[in-house]
């Protein structure tokens, strides 16, 4: 399949109504895989909405919802090899879940505990969520450099929003990816909104994908709400990187159905009509529709999935709510490999202060 | 420089054609000597040598075009000049090349050498004219408090300035304390009848003679004890330390060899010593090495004493003031003059018997 074409248009297999626009590649013709992708998106959404609700009841910190963008995270998570390194921004719940970062662990991060970044298993080299915009793209370029220096058959995959593509780190990183032929895949979640700044005023370029031209790397668009398109594109790009054939920029076109974070109120800057229109193209319903068409889904399985998802999420929430605060000494013990003497005094002070406070209760 | 490049010929001219080489590889050149003639769009220009040297190679033949900044020729034997700086001007090394000496961390872990006091306390001490170095702190970690300073000030006000001990007095304070700490001192006392002594008898000389005799008889009291090694050195020579009181304090000059010299010689020696002490011209070596000491405090006052044994010596004889005493006599009662004697000894190495016999010998000699 040829990816880069001009003029750019997003690659797509399944349209908004759930109809096939292009024949699916071999791997995606397996109903089990499609069902698995579907289940993953539903679980992600269930989790996502539950966390938003927790925040509204004061049991969770500020949280960035991925509502409407589950296909991007799921497609990436399923296409990445176990040995690839994933470098997220902060809307990658679906990918993290696919790579073994449990729902409870993810809540631990958003709930304000560094131990939420302590990943194990497949994700043990993955970077944690990144708040300073676009800086993670540079980290991914560094990871890819290390992979290249060591001649390994793996790659780094990094995500960012379309707003991040305005920042220096983004350009510097894809520029390096081009000149050093780095095994890095940059997936831009173009969900049309960077808080209140719309895509139209973010950049004068017609597409994000074409910024790849300036960097000398391949770039193209996919329909970010078509999990099959995302999956296939990421497979293509990661395989290309494993083969030492260089970097790829994938612009996944989507829409941010939720607020930027729970601290944002999107109704201040966008219309209901626009959001309603966007809901018609959302990813979960379209795959469900396609699954029904190929007789790979039904109402009873839907109900079972909904209740299963709710149950998994609830278990995770209960476990999260029971988590004790980490010991105050943890705040000091992981700053350096060995705690310098000057900090030991401070650590003891913090410990003493906590002990006194506890006794005072 | 290694490579001489075509210099800027001015007026925006970027290139020139080589017209004629005036030198060839192997030629020595001097600064200013014409190397090559080149033709620009405007004129023929002679390029002079920028330095003395020998030409290694020429780049370009006659008729070739060469641009500003391109190498014209190479000098022999030069290092490629490398400024390695890109901006500015960097000072280069002198030839110094020692191995650097330094200490990692602190030079010492000792306790503070300065008395601990906050600046406010120091200022208070200054104001009250109290020397902070002489105050013992009673605060935490021996810190000097304002009470300490005020107390010291009041003391000085009420009782006058305390003078720090110096010189001889300071030595005495230190030595006496040390002696007291080390020595196991016992003193035995007795009186000897000196009625028979003539007027003007030289008491000190009599005591010197007596001590010499006693040392010969009881040599253990003429010795040095090294308590760290538990060793006793019996000394044949008797060098008698004689305590001398001066306005400056206690001096103990040494009268050497009292058992072998004649009395006249000893007397002259003693006179000389006294004079030197008075004039403060006595050298330190004349005050060291005593093997036993005599303290004739009786010249002033006092009968019996407990003189201090000064290590490494093991004995000291104190002679008190001669006093009249009524004694019973074969013919009735009589008043005789007696001299009290106090012999202190270090009981770690001298026995009571040895000490008593020594005293007996002294008394016998004095009674002659």
């Amino acid at each position, binding site marked *: 399949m040829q990816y880069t074409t001009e003029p750019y248009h997003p690659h797509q297999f399944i349209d908004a109504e759930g109809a096939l626009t292009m024949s699916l590649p071999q791997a995606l013709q397996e109903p089990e895989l499609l069902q698995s992708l579907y289940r993953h998106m539903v679980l992600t959404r269930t989790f996502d909405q539950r966390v938003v609700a927790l925040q509204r009841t004061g049991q969770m910190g500020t949280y960035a919802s991925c509502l409407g963008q589950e296909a991007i995270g799921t497609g990436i998570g399923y296409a990445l090899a176990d040995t690839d*390194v994933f470098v997220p921004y902060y809307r990658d719940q679906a990918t993290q879940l696919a790579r073994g970062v449990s729902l409870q662990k993810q809540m631990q991060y958003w709930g304000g505990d*560094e131990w939420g*970044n*302590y*990943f194990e298993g497949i994700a043990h080299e993955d*970077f*944690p969520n990144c708040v300073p915009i676009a*800086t993670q793209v*540079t*980290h*991914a*370029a*560094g*990871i*890819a*450099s*290390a992979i*290249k220096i060591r001649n390994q058959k793996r790659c780094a995959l990094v995500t960012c929003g379309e707003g991040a593509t305005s920042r220096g780190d983004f350009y*510097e*990183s894809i520029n*390096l990816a081009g*000149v*050093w032929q780095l095994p890095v895949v940059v997936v831009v979640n173009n969900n049309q909104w960077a808080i209140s700044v719309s895509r139209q005023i973010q950049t004068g370029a017609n597409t994000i994908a074409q910024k790849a031209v300036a960097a000398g790397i391949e770039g193209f668009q996919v329909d970010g709400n078509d999990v099959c398109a995302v999956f296939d594109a990421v497979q293509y790009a990661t395989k290309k990187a494993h083969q030492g054939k260089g970097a790829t920029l994938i612009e996944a076109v989507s829409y941010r159905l939720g607020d930027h974070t729970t601290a944002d109120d999107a109704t201040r800057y966008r219309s209901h009509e626009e959001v309603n229109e966007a809901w018609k193209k959302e990813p979960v319903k379209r795959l469900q529709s396609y699954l029904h068409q190929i007789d790979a889904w039904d109402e009873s399985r839907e109900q079972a999935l909904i209740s299963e998802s709710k149950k998994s999420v609830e278990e995770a929430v209960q476990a999260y709510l029971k988590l004790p605060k980490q010991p105050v000494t943890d705040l000091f013990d*992981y*700053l*350096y*490999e060995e705690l310098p003497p*000057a*900090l030991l005094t401070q650590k003891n002070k913090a410990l003493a202060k906590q002990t006194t406070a506890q006794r005072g209760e | 420089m290694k490579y001489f490049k075509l210099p800027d010929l001015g007026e925006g001219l970027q290139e020139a054609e080589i017209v004629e080489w005036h030198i060839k590889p192997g030629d020595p050149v001097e600064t200013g000597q014409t190397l090559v003639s080149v033709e620009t769009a405007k004129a023929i220009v002679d390029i002079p040598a920028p330095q003395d040297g020998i030409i290694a190679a020429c780049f370009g033949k006659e008729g070739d075009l060469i641009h500003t900044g391109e190498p014209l020729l190479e000098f022999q034997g030069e290092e490629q*000049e*490398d*400024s*390695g*700086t*890109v901006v*500015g*001007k*960097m*000072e*280069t*090394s002198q030839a*110094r*090349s*020692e*191995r*650097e000496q*330094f*200490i*990692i*961390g*602190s*030079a*010492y872990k000792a306790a*503070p050498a*300065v008395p*601990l006091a*906050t*600046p406010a306390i120091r200022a208070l001490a*200054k104001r009250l004219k109290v020397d902070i170095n002489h105050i013992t702190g009673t605060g935490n970690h021996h*810190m000097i408090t304002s009470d300490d300073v005020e107390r010291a000030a009041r003391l000085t006000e009420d009782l006058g300035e305390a003078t720090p001990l110096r010189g001889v007095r300071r030595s005495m304070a230190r030595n006496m304390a040390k002696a007291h700490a080390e020595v196991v001192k016992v003193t035995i006392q007795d009186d000897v009848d000196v009625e028979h002594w003539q007027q003007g008898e030289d008491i000190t000389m009599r005591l010197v003679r007596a001590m010499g005799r006693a040392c010969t008889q009881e040599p253990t009291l003429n010795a040095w004890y090294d308590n760290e090694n538990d060793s006793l050195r019996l000394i044949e020579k008797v060098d008698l330390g004689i305590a001398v009181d001066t306005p400056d304090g206690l001096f103990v000059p040494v009268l050497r060899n009292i058992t072998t010299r004649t009395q006249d010689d000893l007397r002259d020696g003693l006179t000389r010593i006294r004079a030197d002490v008075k004039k403060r011209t006595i050298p330190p070596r004349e005050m060291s090495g005593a093997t036993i000491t005599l303290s004739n405090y009786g010249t002033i006052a006092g009968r019996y004493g407990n003189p201090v044994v000064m290590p490494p010596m093991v004995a000291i004889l104190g002679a008190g003031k001669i006093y009249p005493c009524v004694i019973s006599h074969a013919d009735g009662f009589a008043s005789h003059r007696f001299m009290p004697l106090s012999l202190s000894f270090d009981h770690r190495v001298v026995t009571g018997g040895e000490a008593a016999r020594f005293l007996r010998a002294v008394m016998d000699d004095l009674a002659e």
Partner: protein
Amino acid sequence: MGMHESPDNLKLSNDAPDNVTAHIVTMIEAINLALHRAMIADENVVVLGEDVANNGGVFRATIGLKDRFGCKRVMDTPLAETLIAGISVGMAAQNLRPVAEIQFMGFIYATLEHMVSHAARLRNRTRGRLHCPMVLRAPYGGGIHAPEHHSESTEALFAHIPGLRVVIPSSPTRAYGLLLSAIEDPDPVVFLEPKRIYRMVKQEIYDDGVGLPLDTCYTLRQGSDITLISWGALIHETLQAAATLEQQGISAEVIDVATISPLDTDTLVSSVEKTGHCVVIQEAARHCGVAAEIIASLNELAFNALKAPPARVAGYDIPMPYFRREDDYLPNVGDIVNAAKATLMTSGERS
């Protein structure tokens, strides 16, 4: 006169650490030796930056490395300081040991985001799962009559950041030893090289691969009347001032801080408890410079031993002037001597 020795003089015949052959080197040559040594010892050590590979670095710090270790370990990056720091974080997280060069401290500010937000925090925020063993090297400080922005002394910016180490050598010996230790350290180090003394002094060192400890000060000269504390190029002026003071009957102790952060207060306190007086000397601007931290710490820990307030000799709170007036800005030997004598006069120990 040639200003650097060619790499052949510095190469060893069999790559083994050598504590027998003395190399008489300047600071920049010592840094080069240390880089060669570190790259031999650990294949994960890589060097990156602008002009570091083919050109050997604009100050020749990295000369000979590319020829010896190849272009996969010695990399010329595009002109992008943010990138240099950011990819170092990524490489370090993959257990490479990147030694990244920023050409001048004036251009280091673009790296602040990655150093502060990421390098300093990676170990902490992943609770030790990932860590960042990188070194960011830069020539720093003034005194070479350079154009503007090439004479910065803003080490305080980095010193303030928990999770970073800031190390500043003041001699070829300490440059060699401290750089080796910085490269071996499992956490990020900002290694600032005082360019004014890059070539000023030659010392005898052995390429024995032995590092000097970080997190400790160095006592360069013992004394009993006053403690002079400094780092970087001004150590030289400080030592000269101590010699001048000696001639005037004042015995000065000179301490090289070396690791600015974390600070070894024990050594500084021991010295001040002995002398009761101190002067801290920095080239950087006075306000919120490292001297302020040192003096605050001395006040907390050694107040009662101080006989006079600790004094500071520092640059003015102005940008480094253009070079014609550079010497009016930089502290000199006279400034240090005067500050020392004034301190002793305050306590009354000298009149």
